[in-house]
């Protein structure tokens, strides 16, 4: 038996022995995610046990080094772990912006002290992080951000406003892009800094979207005093002062790839044609009762399928050693535009029923709210226009205006 086969066997056995059966329902959806954090209330004892056991093995973040709370697994091993979990329909024990975003940033740009202090609590689900990037006047042009961070000798003084900070109202800490040198060129005066949300002067306000409640918040910094060090030798700033844009860029690409790779999720659920047939019915030849809708659905299914195969191909190319690079912009662009189109078709098919906004029948307007929510897909994480710019410049090498 090869090492990997042996690992697979052990893993399967350990998972089977340790995962509570309530955690094996394959349940997705935001309401079933375990986010962790100081204020986290477990939805069940099983959720708590599952997190503790996985965290103890370092398998909430299996690829991170063991020293920082991870599992120290190789890429292949991580894949096997995920495979086995999926086969047994196990829920993820923990998700968080700490795992997705801050962890990778610290692993690449952090000091040993920063990693030691911040990574293990993330891995154990003890500290929940949020991300402070966007500002009201800096949307696609993120680097034009204005949140001020002044050097006051023994501390930083932060003033400004962030927007679209997901779950800021439930998070413990925030990683923030701030302007530390207002005189430098746009991209050169930005730093990446870590701030405790409990700091005086930090406050949040939830944002209501056109689709209803949302995890998004505005986050305000009013004379927030942030220590230079969060502990002995633990700098509040990650990476080099005024070079925070490097960290941001790294994470943005990372985020795009994540959105790209997770694009499958976007397309999960029932097929458009199946859904449409359910809503509008079929005629005696088995064709949708709405011929024009049928054409649009068929065209969308062709494109959706072609898109899924493209994600598969890029993944296979990546495995074969070809980096994805700017192609992640293609996945982000096409996937989010397609998802909007998909929900337009669902709305078309569901007719007046899909337009209901309250009441049991519509689960309080679930479809309509999801439809409206998709409109943000092509805005958040870099607008479609920004992705097209990136493709033009970096892949097609078309010149700047």
């Amino acid at each position: 038996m090869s090492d990997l086969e042996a690992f697979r066997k052990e893993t399967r056995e350990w998972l089977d022995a340790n995962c509570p059966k309530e955690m094996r329902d394959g349940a997705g959806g935001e309401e079933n995610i375990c986010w962790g954090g100081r204020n986290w209330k477990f939805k069940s004892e099983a959720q708590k046990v599952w997190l503790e056991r996985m965290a103890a093995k370092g398998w909430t973040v299996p690829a991170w080094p063991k020293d920082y709370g991870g599992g120290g697994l190789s890429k292949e091993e991580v894949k096997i772990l995920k495979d086995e979990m999926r086969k047994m329909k196990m829920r993820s024990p923990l998700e968080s912006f700490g795992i997705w975003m801050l962890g990778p940033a610290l692993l690449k740009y952090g000091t040993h002290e920063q990693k030691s202090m911040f990574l293990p609590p993330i891995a154990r689900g003890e500290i929940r992080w949020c991300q402070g990037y966007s500002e009201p006047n800096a949307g696609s042009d993120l680097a034009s951000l204005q949140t001020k961070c002044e050097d006051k000798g023994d501390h930083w003084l932060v003033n400004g406003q962030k927007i679209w900070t997901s779950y800021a109202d439930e998070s413990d800490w925030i990683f923030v892009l701030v302007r530390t040198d207002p005189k430098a060129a746009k991209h050169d005066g930005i730093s990446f800094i870590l701030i405790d949300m409990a700091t005086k002067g930090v406050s949040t306000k939830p944002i209501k979207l056109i689709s209803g409640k949302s995890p998004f918040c505005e986050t305000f910094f009013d004379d927030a005093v942030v220590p230079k060090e969060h502990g002995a030798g633990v700098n509040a700033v990650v990476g080099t002062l005024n070079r925070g844009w490097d960290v941001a860029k790294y994470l943005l690409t990372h985020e795009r790839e994540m959105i790209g790779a997770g694009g499958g999720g976007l397309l999960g659920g029932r097929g458009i044609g199946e859904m449409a047939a359910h809503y509008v019915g079929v005629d005696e030849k088995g064709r949708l009762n709405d011929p024009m809708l049928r054409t649009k659905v068929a065209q969308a299914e062709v494109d959706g399928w072609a898109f899924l195969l493209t994600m598969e191909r890029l993944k296979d190319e990546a495995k074969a050693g070809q980096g994805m690079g700017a192609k992640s912009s293609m996945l982000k662009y096409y996937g989010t535009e397609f998802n909007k189109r998909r929900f337009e078709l669902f709305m078309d098919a569901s007719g007046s029923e899909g337009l209901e906004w309250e009441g049991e029948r519509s689960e309080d307007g679930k479809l309509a709210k999801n439809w409206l929510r998709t409109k943000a897909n092509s805005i958040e994480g870099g607008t479609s226009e920004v992705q097209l710019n990136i493709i033009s410049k970096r892949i097609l090498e078309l010149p700047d205006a």
Partner: protein
Amino acid sequence: MPLILTEEQEMLKESARGFLDEKAPVAALRKLRDERSEEGFSRALWKEMAEMGWAGILVEEEHGGSGFGFVGAGVLAEEMGRTLTASPFLSTSILAATALNKFANDAAKSEYLPKIATADIVMALAVDEGRKHGPAVTAMKAEKSGNGFKLSGSKAFVADGHVADKLIVAARTAGSPGEEAGISLFLVDAKAKGVERERTIMVDSRNAARVNFENVAVTGEDVIGEIDNGHAALEGVLSAGRAGLAAELSGSAQQAFEMTTTYLKERTQFGKVIGSFQALQHRAAHLYCEIELVKSVTLKALQDLDNAFGMAGVTASLAKAKAGEVAKLASQEAVQMHGGIGMTDEYDIGLYMKRIRVAQEMFGDSAYHAERLARLRGY
């Protein structure tokens, strides 16, 4: 007849814009929504509209109306589309007034038209039963019972249905679902025994209802149009509704587009006003053209209703098909070009997207009408 507004119609448009901007801006809809208004519109405002002759815009002077005709009604609908004004204008002043004017007996005309003109009655058209529009698939039954009929069945997506005093109901006196023949139209008291109404709060925060009928008794006097042959009347009324909705969609699309171009001229990114980015310019310019096309087809449909009512079904379908599609595009481009702020509930643009979705679905979406035109054109 030239495809432009007459001077009189232009004046109506101007005064409507002034009035609505002042009395019924988008903030008014927002207020009705946030206060969870029971009625979904302001009675006081509706009364004011009646005083200006709007409620009775299709009611002839002999019945107390202003008799401005369909182009006039469309001008008002367009302006209300701009401000997303909630009122029973479509249900009562366009649909019900058309049904009465064109197809009702003199007694019904004399009784109801004056009340429409004074905003003392709200009426609603109950036609669809399933998710998608389809007058011919009416399944609701109207069974002969003595000198009258008993209605049983259910209706959905009845605009203003939950506040209506009277319902105009399509039911089957013969034939089977799918056939145009065999449908009749009835005027039913909304408080009659056997009528049950559920208010459905829709994505656009406007009024709609599902209505259940169980052995609801009506008399022969309550029939609008011909027995078994109500489909023609129903289509006539729907043509008026479709053209009215097209006009409303045109107004909403124009307003969403104007808000967008305004935003494009203000918002700065990468050191430039985003309206200077050519990719956005070309999309805006294309949308401009599409909206111009909507204006033309809408006016044509309204003129046809005034000049050749019986023939107006085709251009009404054309207008509804085109206006629905373009208004949708306008709302999508508006949200995308506004970026994050366009996604917030605080900002108005989302309200346009929501209302446009509902209006384009009502009485047939673009697919329905393109399909219908294809059939009429023989392919």
